[in-house]
């Protein structure tokens, strides 16, 4: 299993190589990418911060749980920190499995759990300000920052 928290660019090729296995008939790759808008506002760039030691621990636990629960061959979970521009990859997950079905179901579960449980935060920076965006998007629980609510 490959888990990493890094300020370096994430390379899908490395994650694919890390999970490749002669027993795997499928490799599924998910990229979480910085988009140029959120909650109706234009985003300039994002800044990610992690509780790195705990993030690695939680990623490893989730990876093990995903492998056991869905019968996966291997998983790679990488999260980037620091300043990310539009279009850059913040989260990279690769999954190998015997057949394609579990690579999709296991991958969907793992992406959602990573977003819920791994202690990583992002700050949106736009032209005239910045705001921490807190709450997992995957659960629809992401809150509009106070500055937007009061508008």
């Amino acid at each position, binding site marked *: 299993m490959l888990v990493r928290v890094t300020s370096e660019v994430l390379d899908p090729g490395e994650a694919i190589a890390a999970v490749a296995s002669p027993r795997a008939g499928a490799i599924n790759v998910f990229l979480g990418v910085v988009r140029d808008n959120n909650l109706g506002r234009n985003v300039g760039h994002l800044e990610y911060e992690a509780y790195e*030691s705990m993030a690695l621990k939680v990623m490893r636990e989730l990876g093990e749980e995903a492998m056991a629960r869905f019968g996966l061959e291997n998983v790679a979970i990488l999260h980037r920190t620091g300043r990310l521009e539009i279009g850059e990859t913040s*989260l990279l997950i690769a999954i190998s499995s015997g057949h394609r079905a579990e690579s999709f179901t296991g991958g969907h579960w793992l992406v959602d759990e990573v977003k*819920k449980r791994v202690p*990583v935060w992002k700050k949106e920076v736009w032209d005239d300000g910045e705001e921490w965006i807190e*709450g997992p998007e*995957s659960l629809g629980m992401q809150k509009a920052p106070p500055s937007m609510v009061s508008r």
Partner: protein
Amino acid sequence: MCIGGAGLAQPAAKPGYNGRVGVTVLLFASLAQAAGTRRLELEWRDGETVGSVCARVIERMPALERFVPNLVFALNEEYADAADPVPRGATVALIPPVSGGS
């Protein structure tokens, strides 16, 4: 009240003792920004719990009180409940809602 509003039920963290006498508190994201610091050292008190540590941080930095309803806690890098006992030398993290990925 530091009751850990956001939940995330977890088994109690294993107690650990790393040789320091106090309690280290880690702050992140919006909380660190509001506090102007990422780390506090508190004196350990008898009967210390995650909730009592959180309450003492708020006492020292009242500006953080508005974050409390949305916080979860970690004790020695495991998600923890407010009622979990905090051993001497432990690290408690006050964790705002996480937002990984993009």
